[in-house]
C-alpha cells in the first residue's frame, strides 16, 4: 500500500518556507506550507499530516506552544523543530514535549533529509501493524 507522505512546513520567513518546500518536494513528499502557527493548526486539524516541520521562534505563537497544540489535535503527527540557536536544554524540552528532533539552522540538506526519511521509515513500519 502506498503511504501518503504529507509534510507541513511552518516558518514565518517566506524564503525558508519556499526552500523547505522545494527540498522536500524534490524528495517526493507532499508539502504544504504555513506562515504562522494558527494557519498551521487549521491545516493540521483538517488534513492530519504525518510530519510537521516548524520554526521555534515565530511571532504570535512560538514553536514549542505549537508543538503542544499539535500533539493535542493530532497525536499521530510527528514534529521536527527548527531553531537558530539551540542548546541541550531546548532539545530536552522539545523531546520531552513529544518532538522527534530539534534541527539547528542553517539546515544541512543531508541531515534534514536523513531525519525525515528515518521518520517516514518508522511510520511505514508502525502503520501496517494497526
Amino acid at each position, binding site marked *: 500500500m502506498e503511504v501518503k507522505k504529507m509534510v507541513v512546513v511552518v516558518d514565518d*520567513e517566506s*524564503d*525558508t518556507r*519556499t*526552500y*523547505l518546500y*522545494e*527540498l522536500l518536494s*524534490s524528495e517526493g513528499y507532499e508539502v504544504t506550507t504555513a506562515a504562522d502557527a494558527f494557519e498551521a493548526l487549521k491545516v493540521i486539524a483538517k488534513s492530519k499530516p504525518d510530519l510537521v516541520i516548524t520554526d521555534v*521562534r515565530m511571532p504570535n505563537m512560538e514553536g514549542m506552544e505549537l508543538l503542544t497544540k499539535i500533539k493535542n489535535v493530532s497525536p499521530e503527527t510527528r514534529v521536527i523543530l527548527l531553531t*537558530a*540557536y539551540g542548546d*541541550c536544554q531546548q532539545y530536552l524540552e522539545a523531546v520531552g514535549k513529544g518532538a522527534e528532533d530539534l534541527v539547528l*539552522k*542553517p*539546515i*544541512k*540538506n*543531508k541531515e534534514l533529509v536523513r531525519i525525515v526519511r528515518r521518520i517516514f521509515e518508522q511510520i511505514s513500519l508502525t502503520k501496517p501493524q494497526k
Partner: protein
Amino acid sequence: MKPPSQVLEFISALADRYTYNPFRNAYIIFGFIWGIPIPFFSVGIDIFVAGRVFSLQSFLMAFSEHPIHHFFAIHPIIFAIVFGTMGTVRYRKDCKIDGLINELKGNVEQLARANEKLKELDKLKSDFVANITHELKTPLVAIRGYSEMLQEGRLGNINDKQKDGLGTIIRNVDRFQKMVEDLLQLAKIDSGKLVLNKARFDIRDVVSTALIPFQPQIVGKRLNVENAFPEGDTVVYADMDKILHVLTNLISNAVKFTMQEGTIGIDIKSNSDSRVTITVWDTGCGVTEEQQKHLFERFWQADNSATRKHSGSGLGLPIVKGILDAHNSTIRVLSVPNSGSKITFDLPLAEVNLSIDKILRGDVWK
C-alpha cells in the same frame, strides 16, 4: 623658612569672626573658665611667699603692688581667644569633612544611577546579541539551503565548475555561521550567562571525539599524533560540551599552526591534588613572549598582516579562556617561536571513588 601649616591655620583662624562668638563657639567659654583661677593663683603665691595672712585686704594689696598680676588678670580673656581659635580650626575641619561627605554621597548616588543604567544597557546588549544572532542566521537558511540544493542537482543539472563554486559558497556560509555562534558564546561569557551543565565523564573519550573532525587535515598535512593517556583515573566533573569546545579549539590551532609532517599531541595526567592536567602541544610556529600577552584578546591574531597564511576570527582563545574561567581552571601557555607551543589546563577529578569509599565505610549515613 616657612612656618608650619598649623601655625598659618591658627593665625587665619584668629582673624575669623567665629573665634569671638561665644554663642556658637563653646571653646571660648571653656577657655574663659580655665583662665579664671590663674590670677588667684598668682596673687595667692605672692601672699604665701611674703608670709602674709590671707584676707581680701591682703589680696587687693598684693594685686595692686605688682603689674604682673594685672597681666594674669586678663588670662581668662587670653585663654578664651586661644581656645576659641582652636574651636574655629576644629570647626573649619568639620565643615570640610561634611563637605567631603556630602560630595561623596552625591558621587555614590551618581554611581548607583550609572550602575543601574549600565545594567539596563547590559541586558539590552544581551537581548540585542540574541536577536542579532537570530537575524543573522535566518538569511543563511535560504542561502545555504538553495546552494546545497543546486549543488546536489535537485534543481537541474550543473557542471563541475558550478558545483565547486557552490561548494565555496557553502563553506563560507558555515564559516560565517561559526563566527556568529562564537560572538553569541562570547556575549554569554561576558554577561555571566554561561551556564555549566556539569557531569562526570572520561576526559580521554572527549579528547578522542575532539580529534575526529581533524583527521582529514592531519592526514593531508602528514602530521604525527602522539597522545599520552594514562591508565589511571581520568573521570572529571565538568561541562562536557564546553570542554569539547575548548579541546576542539586548541586542537584546531595546533593543526593550523603546525607545518607539514610536524607533530601534535595531547597529554593527560592525573595529579595528586585530585585534578587532571590536559596539555595540547605541537611543533608548530609558536608565538613570542610579547605575543603571548595578547593571545586571549578578542580579534587578536599573531599575524595581523593582510597576507597572513592562517584564517580565523580571533575569537577562539577568548572563548576557551571564558569557558575555563567558568570552570575555575587556569590556562597556561608555553611557547617558543618556530619550535612549538604547549597549552595546559586542568579539571577536577570526579569524586566517584571517594563516594564508594564512603559507602563502604558507612560514612554516608552519618
